[in-house]
Structure formats: C-alpha cells, structure tokens
C-alpha cells in the first residue's frame, strides 16, 4: 500500500510533531508552528474519506485498537479507502497554511542545529554548542518559547528522549544520559553510559542503542525493576540499571551500520538488512535473529542512517531513502532528500515519516501496518497496546488499582 502524501512547499531544515502541533524549521532560521488538527480538519475531502484521513494523520494509534478491523469486510473497506486516499497527494497552499498557522518566529536556537526532539512539553535541540531546552506547551506567545536554557556544553550529534532522560550521542565522547524529567528530578551533569564513538542513538524500551559509522554500534542493555528495589547498585529512579554494553559484532557477528528501536535491532550491510528481536523484559533469549530483508543496495551508495517505526524499517542510503514496510514490500524515494524523521514513540503520529526535500517537505502516512499480523512481521516494531500493558502492570503490582 502506498503512503498518503501531504506536501508543504518551501525550504526546510527540520520538523517536529507533538500534541496537535506541527513545527517546521525553515532554512532561513524561522520556526513555523501550525495547528495540525485544524490543518487536517480543513482539507477538502468528502465525508466518506474523513475517517481514514483522521486515522492517517491525526490518530494513528486508534486503528490498532479497533476490534472491528478483525472483520474481513471492515478490513477490506478501510484498506480500499486508504488506497484511494494514497492516490491523491495533497499539496497545501498558502491559504490553507495561513488558516492553520499558530505563529511564525525567529528560531531561538542558533542555525544550524543537528537534531531535535519534543518531550514532556519541551523541545530539546542539540548542536556542536551543546544541549538546549525551550518550552512548547501551547501556553507561550510563540509555538516555541523564546526563553532557551542551556543544559550541557558538549558537542552532540543526535538525541532521543524517554524514561525522563535524554540519550545523547556525543561522537568520540560516547553515549550519555541526561535526566530531564519533571521538577522532582534533580538535574545533574550527564552520565557517561558508554565511552564508545556514538553519532546517533535511540531507545529500545528502557535500553539505549548507540550507532556509529566509524566503529561498531552497541546496545546499552538495561534491566528494569518496576518495583524499584533500592538494593540494586546504580539503579535509577525509574528502576533501570545497566547490565552491560553489547557491541553490534556480538549481536550480528558481522560488520555494518546498525540501529534499533523498541523490540527491533537492525544492521545494514551488502544490500541486506538483518533484523533481530530484542526482549529486555526476559532473562534469557533477549536477542534473537528474526531474518534478513533484501534491499538491493548496489546503486544506493553508503548507508547514512536507519530507524525503525511500526510501519517498517527505514534505511537512508547516500542516494535514496528506503522503507522496508512491515507488509513485506519496499517503498523508496525517487529523488535526493535533505533529511527525514519518524516518531516511533508517539501516540498519534507513529505512522508518519517526514521527508524534507530541497524545495518542500512531505508528511507521509503509512497505513500498511494495521493489516499486518504483529506476531509474524519482521520489519517494524511490534505494536503493543501501551495503555493495556500499563493497566496490567498496575494490577500486577497494585491489586487495589483494579477495584
């Protein structure tokens, strides 16, 4: 199934999506903030396509929970509606953008930043000058507060947020963690997790994967005790403690660029992507081989970056961006890209892939994964109903929660 495409003309550097707002960083150093729901709600589509449009761009998680999709007739109708929508790429015009505009501001961060993420109503930006934070909670005059705090001085390449922490890829300095949670958490200096070259990082549940082009990637393999037993040395307030650092060579027994997200660890090499599963909640068989995806790299050039989302595994080569979809098909860009971003830990935008081209940005919505057996898929993170698993955990450890 082809993705739905929403095209926004212009020259951009970065994008973010969070809590109904879409942030576009222009190459000129402005930040455009849009009310995403208003923008989608005002698209001129017939009523019969409204529901799939909403799932596709605003509430990606809902369809996973929709039990009626188990009915073959409902499934067929939804599939056909998504396919129909995918045939029409939506190019937004100035009027539509102005209508949904919240603010246009000079970026309070120096151009060019390397990476960004939004976590707990704050945007974090990393660059060679350090780690910076600004509030973006819909209460400030502009989409992003102009009051910027510097959290760290070191040069950072990329970051990822979870468990009240930023994972920071600081190049030759290694992989660090910085506590950034609520007011109750004391902000200390970042903690060195692995003194190995690391230029990108991502969360795999409560563990962190560090990637590098120059040396091997590695998994900072954590355990987590939700009961928070304090006798475990170096346990953090989330009940996490580091078991060991596992180099990618020990995971895959071959070299290549590797990356991970949640229950997937991937390595690209020789036109293939090897996929392993990762189950940090188990004591044994935490990492197991799931299979290999053929990408046929021959003319794609070197591997630049990778990510995993629910809808598939994304690999950026020098000349093309490839998405190995969870339904077994492959989708590619047909022109050079500036950058891209996925939101695998989001609740409503986990099916989106943002691609910035020289003259526009595209928000792509992949909807193949709703129709895939989650237990059998190789490419892509396995869908977990987070609300249900949280509730189950509450009952497990606090029986009174069920009453």
């Amino acid at each position: 199934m082809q993705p739905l495409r929403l095209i926004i003309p212009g020259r951009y550097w970065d994008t973010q999506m969070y809590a109904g707002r879409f942030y576009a960083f222009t190459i000129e150093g402005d930040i455009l903030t849009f009310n995403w729901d208003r923008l989608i709600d005002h698209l001129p589509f017939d009523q019969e396509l409204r529901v799939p449009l909403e799932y596709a761009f605003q509430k990606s998680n809902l369809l996973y929970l929709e039990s009626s999709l188990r009915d073959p007739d409902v499934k067929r109708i939804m599939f056909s509606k998504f396919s129909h929508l995918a045939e029409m790429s939506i190019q937004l015009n100035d009027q539509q953008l102005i209508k949904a505009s919240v603010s246009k501001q000079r970026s309070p961060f120096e151009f060019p930043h390397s990476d960004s993420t939004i976590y707990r109503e704050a945007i974090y930006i990393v660059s060679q000058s350090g780690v910076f934070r600004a509030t973006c909670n819909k209460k400030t005059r502009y989409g992003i507060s102009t009051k910027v705090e510097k959290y760290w001085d070191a040069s950072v390449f990329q970051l990822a947020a979870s468990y009240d922490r930023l994972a920071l890829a600081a190049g030759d300095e290694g992989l660090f963690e910085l506590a950034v949670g609520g007011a109750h958490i004391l902000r200390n200096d970042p903690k060195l997790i692995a003194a190995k070259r690391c230029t990108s990082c991502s969360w795999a549940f409560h563990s962190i994967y560090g990637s590098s082009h120059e040396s091997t990637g590695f998994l900072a393999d954590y355990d987590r005790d939700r009961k928070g037993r304090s006798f475990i040395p170096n346990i953090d307030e989330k009940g996490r403690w580091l078991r060991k650092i596992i180099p990618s060579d020990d995971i895959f027994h071959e070299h290549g660029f590797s990356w991970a997200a949640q229950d997937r660890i991937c390595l690209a090499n020789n036109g293939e992507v090897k996929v392993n599963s990762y189950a940090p909640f188990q004591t044994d068989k935490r990492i197991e081989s799931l299979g290999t995806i053929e990408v046929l790299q021959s003319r794609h050039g070197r591997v630049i970056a990778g990510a995993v989302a629910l809808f598939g595994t994304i690999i950026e080569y020098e000349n093309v961006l490839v998405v190995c979809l969870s339904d077994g098909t492959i989708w590619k860009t047909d022109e050079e890209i500036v950058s891209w971003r996925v939101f695998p830990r989001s609740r409503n935008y986990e099916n989106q892939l943002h691609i910035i081209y020289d003259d526009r940005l595209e928000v792509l919505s992949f909807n193949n994964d709703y129709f895939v057996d989650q237990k059998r898929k190789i490419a892509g993170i396995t869908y977990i109903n987070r609300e249900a698993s949280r509730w189950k955990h509450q009952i497990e450890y606090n029986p009174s929660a069920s009453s």
Partner: protein
Amino acid sequence: MSLGPPVIGGNLVYVPNPVHRNNTRGKSQWTINETQEVSSFNYSNNEGWIRETTGWGLHLVNGSPDYLGVARDHKTQVFVAKFVDANKSRTWHGYPTDFLDRPPEHILRGWKPLLRTRILKKLSLGQPCSL
C-alpha cells in the same frame, strides 16, 4: 620528514605537508594541486573561515564546491579541507577531511550559500556525504 617550501597565504604562512600528497598510509591525500590547495587556504582566510588554530575550506570551481582529495582510505572522495596551525606559530598546513570531522556551526552558516541544504545537513550530523 621534509616539508615543502613555505607559501604566504594572506598574513599567514602556509606550508603544504607532503604526507598528504605522497600516499602515506592512513593519511588523507589531496587530489588538487598545491597551488589550488594554497588558494583554498587563502580563500578560507579571506572569508573568515580560519579562527585561532583551526580553519576549514572548500575547493570552489566556478563558485561551486568540488572534490579536493580522498579520505584516509585513499578511496572515498572528499570536498572539505581542514587547516591547522598545530604549533600556534602562524604556520599552517591542511589536509582533506571527511564526515568524521564536523565543521563548526559558524563555518556551516558561512557555507550556506555555497552548499546544498542536503550537504549542510549531513555535515551538521556528521554523516557520510558526497557532492
């Protein structure tokens, strides 16, 4: 090790280092000639891309960047030069460098009119890139 003849670049001394021209293993190699290497340094100096003991440069052909050397593997083409005043003696040398060396933000801002956004992005992320 003998260094080549000193060359004046602006108010600084630039001395090409032969290890970046004689196929020394593990050293990146220039593919442009010495005159072009010095021109690249001069251009960087004039544009303010040289600061304290480090500078960054491009090899411009008709106003557009072109490849200027190969990386330490002697295979991968690279288009960024790094200049250093290693002894803080105002005597500089330079070498082709790859994505592992990130040019600082003020350099990337200066290169904005010269490089495509895609290249700027890769340089800022320390990712492999080609022209």
